[in-house]
């Protein structure tokens, strides 16, 4: 179908095939619309599949497996990695994992009759987009609605010369051939901590440097302290409160100069100081799209941009920049555009951090609960109290339940293996408005890590009982 300009015409045009774009396209197709999905990569899935979540989590799984095996073998096996271990060996499953995920995504697009173009998009106006193909041809398309889901890429600060050889970013570090002897990680956010902990688990001497007083500073301090101990036990260091003055390759090592004096030397350096929205070349001004001061596309509560027919979802609109949130945003953006019933985004969105050990969180933390509800109790279950954790040989972990003074669950925070799975039990309890009694009165499989819920709920319930007695 073409319009008066001779452009191809679709009901919905989606730019980017990552989690947000993929879901937006499928949602629109399921609503009976003609959909075009444009991506600069030939394969579906965006950065999530090519350079982000899937590759880094595959490497993390190998590192966590080795760390777990060491713990379980109790020195029966010599599990020291050979010097200069090939990173490629640790990622040997990546090709299969990535292939399986791409096949699943592509099949879903085909099944829903979604048209795909491989190319880079540029807005000509709010309704028209030019797509430059890799073979240097150009095509123009118009659509009733456009969803921008072009994702993000690593930020390169001016004082850090990322050359992808000695100073790497979170994409190029995955192409390391050999494990370096030492690694400086610039930053202390999610990506910095994920890579720092996984390389420390593989025996690399890791030094994380950041101006922040602690890693993952946005998290519950008890979880952060727990993470820091585990990271330091694995040999990692964290230099808190240090701004980066400059970074240079001196011909032998990467030297990180600290603003307060001093330096850190290492074989490689990872710059993990945030990500920026992928809008270069999109010419968003031509479409009348407004950007935020932090360089993200500005959207309203319904994910609509300042151009009435254009929506945006995923990393391109900024935090929380999680794949899970992006999927939900892509779906909601299209439903709003098409006038379909939209639920408000669930209040209880879990977050998962794939450090070693894993961290997960949902709902309020202790301070937020006290501020919002005038008081709270905290029940704790340590993995060492759980038979399953001992069987697994992974007793380093904890679940915290936050409950109001009426016993209603307000939040849950977990650290330890399988924390990112465990947290969904709490998410469902929060959505259902359940109280601590639900965990105490019901039966859990034994032995499981989920038993932590009973242990933590009993701890919190006992505190509530003491308060009543007092």
């Amino acid at each position: 179908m073409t319009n008066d300009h001779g452009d191809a015409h679709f009901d919905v045009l989606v730019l980017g095939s990552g989690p947000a774009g993929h879901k937006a396209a499928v949602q629109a197709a399921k609503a009976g619309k003609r959909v075009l999905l444009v991506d600069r990569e030939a394969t579906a899935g965006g950065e999530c599949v090519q350079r982000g979540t899937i590759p880094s989590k595959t490497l993390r799984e190998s590192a966590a497996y080795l760390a777990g095996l060491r713990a379980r073998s109790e020195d029966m096996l010599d599990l020291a990695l050979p010097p200069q271990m090939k990173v490629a060996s640790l990622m040997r499953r990546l090709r299969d994992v990535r292939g399986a995920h791409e096949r699943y995504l592509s099949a879903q697009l085909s099944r829903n009759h979604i048209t795909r173009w491989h190319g880079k998009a540029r807005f000509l106006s709010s309704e028209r987009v030019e797509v430059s193909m890799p073979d240097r041809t150009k095509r123009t398309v118009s659509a009733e609605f456009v969803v921008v889901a072009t994702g993000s890429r690593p930020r390169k600060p001016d004082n850090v010369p990322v050359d992808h050889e000695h100073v790497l970013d979170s994409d190029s570090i995955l192409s390391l051939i050999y494990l370096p002897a030492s690694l400086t990680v610039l930053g202390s956010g999610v990506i910095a901590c994920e890579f720092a902990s996984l390389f420390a688990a593989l025996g690399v001497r890791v030094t994380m440097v950041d101006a922040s007083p602690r890693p993952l500073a946005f998290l519950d301090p008890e979880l952060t302290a727990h993470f820091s101990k585990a990271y330091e036990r694995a040999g990692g260091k964290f230099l808190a409160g240090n701004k980066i003055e400059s970074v240079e390759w001196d011909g032998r090592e990467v030297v990180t100069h600290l603003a307060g004096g001093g330096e850190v030397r290492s074989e490689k350096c990872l710059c993990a100081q945030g990500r920026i929205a992928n809008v270069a070349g999109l010419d968003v001004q031509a479409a009348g799209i407004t950007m935020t001061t932090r360089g993200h596309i500005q959207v309203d509560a319904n994910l609509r941009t300042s151009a009435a027919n254009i929506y945006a979802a995923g990393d391109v609109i900024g935090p929380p920049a999680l794949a899970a949130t992006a999927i939900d945003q892509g779906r909601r953006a299209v439903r709003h555009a098409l006038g379909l019933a939209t639920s408000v985004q669930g209040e209880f969105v879990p977050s998962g951090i794939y450090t070693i050990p894993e961290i997960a969180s949902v709902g309020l933390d202790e301070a937020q609960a006290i501020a919002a509800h005038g008081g709270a109790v905290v029940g704790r279950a340590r993995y060492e109290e759980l038979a399953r954790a001992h069987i697994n040989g992974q007793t380093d972990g904890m679940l915290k339940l936050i409950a109001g003074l009426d016993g209603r669950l307000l939040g849950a925070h977990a650290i330890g293996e399988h924390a990112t799975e465990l947290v969904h039990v709490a998410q469902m309890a929060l959505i259902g408005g359940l109280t601590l009694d639900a965990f105490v009165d019901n039966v859990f499989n034994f032995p499981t890590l989920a038993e932590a819920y009973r242990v933590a709920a009993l701890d919190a319930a006992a505190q509530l009982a003491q308060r009543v007695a007092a």
Partner: protein
Amino acid sequence: MGVSWDENNGVPMSPSLDHGVALPPEVRTWLEAQLEREVDLPMLPESAARVVALCDDDDADARDLEAVLERDPSLAAYVLKVANSSVYASTEPISSLQQAVSRMGMATVRNLALTASLHGRVFDVPGHSKLVADVWIHCAVTAMFAREVARKLRRNVEAAFLCGLIHDVGRPIVLQTALRAARTHATLTQEQLATAMDAYHESVGARLVGVWGLADWTAAAVAHHHEPDRAAPYETEARITRLADLLAHWALTPGSGPEDFPVTDAVVIDLNLYAEDMEELLDLREHVILAAEALQ
């Protein structure tokens, strides 16, 4: 335990591509037998092999490397010469091996040791010095372009350099063997010598890389840099080498302009490089040639 690359993926000793002028059948049969089984592949000189091993040893440091270089004056002189070239030298001239290793880093010195060995042992065919010198500068330019392609794709830069540097290492060996065939069987024209090199350099190069104990992906890229789709699971490494190979041919062709580069070649599309990416790579021509010349 690495991701295994099976040499049986296909490094046929018979020509995989249709190249130029046909070889006389008896020459072809003899040549294939020689290249497949009998030809002596050059070993790395001891000092170069020690440098490569040291750079892969986690416990080794720059002092160990300096000690090896000190025992091989020609290798030491080469390292100092490159360290003082415009690519690496700052205002302060390099006057010691310690300074050179410090300035360039161990990985660079390892690559230089391999480079020097290739130059002395492999790229030395008396009577054909011009032809071999052309192959050599092509390899050096390919190596430098491979680094830049890898940087753009956020792939491993050091591995790309090495694949580029040795991708045509089979050519001089095929040439030496073909010249022996010419002495015993039939006179071969320059075109027939070129045909032999085009046809067999990938498979011979892959054998040599295997004998030297270099990584699987290096062997895959050398074996399949003309047909990178066959280098699975190392297609990307082979494609980077292929694109760098094309860029080097273009850069070393006098009078060629950006419009002469085949920007819609399949390898450009397979690597997902768009017009602006290629423009940036083509703009590096002078820088890359200068850096490659420093290796000579």
